[in-house]
């Protein structure tokens, strides 16, 4: 996974509340076989609206999404995180996120930042024509106008994101313990240690 230290630049001031994963990526995109390519289906229903924010040239190439309360609610589909990543989003700011979505986002190296509603409102305003700056190391969000908001993050998640460590990578680092267990079941429960 790509490490995240610092994300700076254009942010999409989306702001809608209760955006469920079906809005992020509609169900008919679930029959795919890759994680990549889902960006085309991201926010499909919103993108069907003329003049929608996602197709506004002012925000092309944005890595940051500013969202509303309860972002990512609804079905547990991991495709929602894949779709955001594929459209280039690596950081989402919102007053709150659904637990499952923020877990899935984390597993895929997306930073989710929770800030109070008034901070989000201010960032929405700034993002209309100015960049936003998120620093994970210091846990701060800043703007060119001296705004400075700090956020909380689970220390384990922070460390993983900073180093680009995914759960698989972390478990692979426990190889010695896994090998030990493997040797133990080979001795004690050989019929489970091998199939057939």
């Amino acid at each position, binding site marked *: 996974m790509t490490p995240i230290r610092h994300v700076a630049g254009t942010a999409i001031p989306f702001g809608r509340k209760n955006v469920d994963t079906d809005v992020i990526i509609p169900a008919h995109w679930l029959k*795919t*076989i890759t994680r990549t390519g889902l960006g085309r289906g991201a926010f499909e229903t919103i993108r069907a609206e003329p003049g929608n924010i996602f197709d506004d040239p002012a925000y092309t190439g944005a890595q940051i999404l500013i969202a509303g309360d309860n972002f990512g609610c609804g079905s547990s589909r991991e495709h929602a995180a894949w779709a955001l990543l594929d459209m280039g989003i690596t950081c989402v700011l919102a007053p709150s996120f659904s637990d499952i979505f923020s877990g899935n986002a984390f*597993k895929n190296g997306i930073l989710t930042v929770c800030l109070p509603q008034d901070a989000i409102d201010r960032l929405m305003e700034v993002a209309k024509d100015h960049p936003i700056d998120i620093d994970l190391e210091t846990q701060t969000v800043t703007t060119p106008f001296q705004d400075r908001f700090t956020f909380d993050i689970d220390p384990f998640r922070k460390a993983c994101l900073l180093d680009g460590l995914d*759960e*698989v990578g972390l*478990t692979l680092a426990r190889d010695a313990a896994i090998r030990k*267990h493997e040797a133990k079941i080979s001795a004690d*429960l*050989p019929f489970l240690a*091998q199939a057939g």
Partner: protein
Amino acid sequence: MASTAKTLYEKIWNAHVVERRDDGTCLIWIDRHLVHEVTSPQAFEALRVAGRKVRRPDLTLAVPDHNLPTTARRDSAGLRIPIADPESAQQLAALERNAPEFGIRLIGDADAEQGIVHVVGPEQGFSLPGATIVCGDSHTACHGGLGALAFGIGTSEVEHVLATQTLLLKQSKTMEVRVEGDLGPGVTAKDVVLYICGVLGASGGTGYVIEYTGSAIRGLSVEGRLTVSNMAIEHGARAGLIAPDDKTIAYVEGRPYAPKGADWDKAVAWWRSLATDAGARYDRVVIIDAADIQPTVTWGTSPEDTGAIGGVVPDPASFADPSKQEAAQKSLAYMGLTAGQKLSEVEVQNVFIGSCTNSRIEDMRAAAAVVKGRQKAANVRWAIVVPGSGLVKAQAEAEGLDKIFIAAGIEWREPGCSACLAMNPDKVPAGERCASTSNRNFVGRQGPGARTHLVSPAMAAAAAVTGKLTDVRELIG
């Protein structure tokens, strides 16, 4: 004094802990991993992108099932008949590419052993008592009928298991559901588990692993136990478990992947030691009298919406919980039923006998016994029997069961998930009803607008010949 008496769940769990973290999360060793075409493509893709390998391809088995059509797969020249839906075809092709690339055995669509993963695992002896078994599918709980700790996982976890053969998990609470007494005539394993769904509700098992115990459970065949455990997830449980006993051991012995020789003796000794110790404590105990269980049907859009076939559609106002009242009202509107209507007067246009809940040989036999000498009712538009695997199909054909169904006007199909979920061509049309031996009656599960009534194979067969939900006891005398 801390008790050393342990439950079946605790014994299996303890044997599989690789490491325990400070926060209580454990790294758990996985003995068997079943892979199908729907939840695996992105997991394999992630391995490829990261340059990772499958740690134990020998403990992994790939079987396509969800997307496969249940009509012929090869033409008379032995060539593959193309799959019409391009996305289904693409998922199937991905599995056929990924399995060999990562060194995993694939039981392909034309192999005699192909079938629904949860039928194939036990049938091949790949799933064993006491093993930890995962699959990217929520009905993995099925294998708990053998006394395996088996549960469904998501795509990220599929990737984790492929790469590490382990999973990060927190230990679940334990619940005992004890069913004591004798089951009446016409009452099957499916009726037992539907009844339990009604008692516990769709989320009553959330956070628990359920062990089904009691004389009625012990009295079930291993296939019946697989049916019960299959639906543990429908009461919200992480997994279901039934202690392995002589029947389990006899079932496993001699299967292709089953242990042999000295390993077999060791295995049997360990399996016999797994049963919950006297004095072990469960976090919750629910006791059910087997005599209370009647042939059961569902009337709503949650597996908890169950009733005895002799009963009526309930009045939503009769539920104490206001949110359940609202849910029941919505269910009845979707199902096109009215409160007070007799369940035995509900006409069905479709009958589906199959799915990982009820597609093993005993299910085929139970359905055929009811159908024998009868005809599909005129108002039943579509009735199909879909064996759970190629081996079940061959066995049923050797017993002449296929001829009984075909003579009655019921179709006999190739193995797969079929009409259990609307992912392949077998679908129930909007507004029509289906008496189905599957495990989910959710809105749209069998097709957009389809109305599902969950029943046992014998009850589904009865519905096929009478054209309505029917008390099978009236037909078997």
